[in-house]
């Protein structure tokens, strides 16, 4: 599957975010995101996948300017984001790059009607609109996410999880975004409801040209909507590329582990296979070396001394793995 090259919308270069942990005298640092570079094109859904604690959400928060990066730079439409100074430009950026949160029960004010959030962000981000125009705009975005007109006047408790998550998307759409940062938007929903939200994301891309950074740990749902896949492990990118290519021939042992963990009811019912008991490490003051080496059945001596960097192994398909880069075409760690 080849798709035409897309114009670049956002580029992150050597993005790093560290957190100081412990008391005031502690010198320990948690490396939540370490030297991560990627691009998101226009009209593109990029899936960012990895386990809890791999730094996915930190990336979204850095992109949304909730956190400042420790180092590195984000370029949005070619301009460095760190240069944004005025309130007007900041508002413009957060309107173009809004976020949709994971928990549809915690991200809405329970005492206001669901329309309130949309109207408020319209007032803030598009002050030129009159009250009437704001209401019309709210109607438009609710329609766009598949919620009827009667939904706007309801309170959050009257809505199901799926409907609330649609309200989250409506809120993001009201600001005419270019890129929606969706942080696990479906993981708290029932399986039967998830597909509707995934279809909505694809529809927003196809009809409105919105790009989405879709953060998830569910690779099967990523495959369903995304164009490209970035796999994170312990704050670094393990593998990235066009999603079909990555899934057809995963180069990094960690990607293979993730794929093997996805339950597939269509696969023949067989023995459960091996269980991986490992846990993603907390990256505190790391020493050089591959961060996956403790769980990796293929680890070689180099893995303990040198940190692997991303290298292109197939067209547009990168992996950060010494073994895969050494030319072993048939890297197979987890079936």
């Amino acid at each position, binding site marked *: 599957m080849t798709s035409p090259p897309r114009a670049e919308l956002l580029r992150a270069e050597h993005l790093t975010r560290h957190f100081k942990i412990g008391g005031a005298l502690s010198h320990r640092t948690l490396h939540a995101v370490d030297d991560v570079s990627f691009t998101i094109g226009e009209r593109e859904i990029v899936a960012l996948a990895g*386990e*809890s*604690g791999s730094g996915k959400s930190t990336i979204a928060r850095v992109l949304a300017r909730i956190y400042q990066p420790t180092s590195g730079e984000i370029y949005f439409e070619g301009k460095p984001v760190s240069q944004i100074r005025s309130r007007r430009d900041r508002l413009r950026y957060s309107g173009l790059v809004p976020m949709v949160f994971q928990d549809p029960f915690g991200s809405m004010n329970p005492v206001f009607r669901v329309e309130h959030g949309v109207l408020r962000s319209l007032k803030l981000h598009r002050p030129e609109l009159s009250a009437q125009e704001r209401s019309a705009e709210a109607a438009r975005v609710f329609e766009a996410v598949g919620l009827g007109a009667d939904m706007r006047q309801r309170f959050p408790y009257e809505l*199901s*999880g*799926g409907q609330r998550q649609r309200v989250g998307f409506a809120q993001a759409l009201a600001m005419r975004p270019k890129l929606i940062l969706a942080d696990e938007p479906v993981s708290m929903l*029932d*399986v*039967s*409801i*998830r*597909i*509707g939200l*995934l*279809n909505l994301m694809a529809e927003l891309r196809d009809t409105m040209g919105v790009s989405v950074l879709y953060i998830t*740990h*569910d*690779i*099967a*749902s990523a*495959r*369903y909507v995304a164009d490209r896949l970035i796999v994170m492990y312990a704050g670094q990118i393990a593998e990235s590329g066009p999603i079909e290519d990555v*899934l057809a021939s995963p180069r990094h042992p960690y990607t293979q*582990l*993730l*794929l*093997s*963990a*996805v*339950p*597939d*009811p*269509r*696969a023949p*019912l*067989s023995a*459960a*296979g*091996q*269980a*991986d*008991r490992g*846990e993603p490490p907390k990256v505190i003051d790391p020493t050089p070396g591959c961060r996956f080496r403790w769980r990796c059945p293929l680890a070689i001596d180099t893995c303990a001394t040198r940190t692997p960097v991303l290298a292109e192994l197939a067209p547009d398909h990168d992996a950060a793995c010494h073994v895969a880069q050494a030319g072993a075409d048939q890297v197979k760690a987890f079936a």
Partner: protein
Amino acid sequence: MPDVPVLEVSGLCVDYVLDRGDVRAVDDVSFTLGRGEFLGVVGESGCGKSTLLFAVAQLLSPPARVAAGSVKFQGTNMVGMTDEQLAAIRWRDMSVVMQSAMNALNPVKSIGAQFKDAMKAHGAFSKDEIADRSAEVLRMVGIDPVHLKSYPHQLSGGMRQRSMIAMAMLFTPDLVIMDEPTSALDVVAQRSLMVQIKELQLSYGFAVIFVTHDMSLISHFSDQLMVMYAGQVDEFGTTRTVFDRPLHPYTQGLLEAFPSLRGPKVPLKGIPGNPPDLARLPAGCRFHPRCPHAVDKCAQVAPELVTLDEAFVRCLRRQDGSLPAEAGHEGSLSR
């Protein structure tokens, strides 16, 4: 007791007694669970799965109450037992693993102290016995016993869930009831927990009732599968049969709601709409407003649960044979 099943539930009905009238959350559910069997219960949120579990474990509190039916645990009816009588069974013979370990574990007590509490509440043991057994069950789930001294916040989500399971194993019960124990975990941790549960079950021979909304999760683990919708059993059979030949349109919808990792990408629809409000059930078949195959009759006649091809199914069109065997189901397993 060689011939007495571990659990025999017959005609169980649970009502929520509310001011505006009683709401029946579990309607006439019957099943038998043999020694060492694994029963999966699936359905969307609000279909009565958790209420069913609570009724089986006799954990219902007002306004919920068992309105009819019996729950026989090793031949004795538990409905109507006093708390003293139940205390003798609970945890020793039957234990429960709750959905969210974060909420079920006491945050200000170490894991070991909580194990000690559970053991002291259900028997007289010496300090050494408690320490030995606690270390043993923790090792059973693959956690180093040094974590007996850890507090819940010091453990990862997967380890917290596994220590909950360890706690349920303290007395090697005959029945372990699990309410979505994996739903807060990511795929890799989820997979390893499922394999762990299955291994424990095979080596200790306890029966399991496992509730989840993710059908794909238990496809490789459960022996029997019960699909619930709006408080009723819609389909019930061996897991193999239900996955290979789902008869009820709702089961088919659930099965086709997951995107697949392999094979061609197919547009999915999920199941349109939401489960009904149990206080305002539709007439006739409870699923007919969302059913792609509904005919006029479905809105008038409430179907019964009848045997059909080794499985039980509650569908009028299936029962009168007007729905061809493969209708609406393009062999989702062969894709």
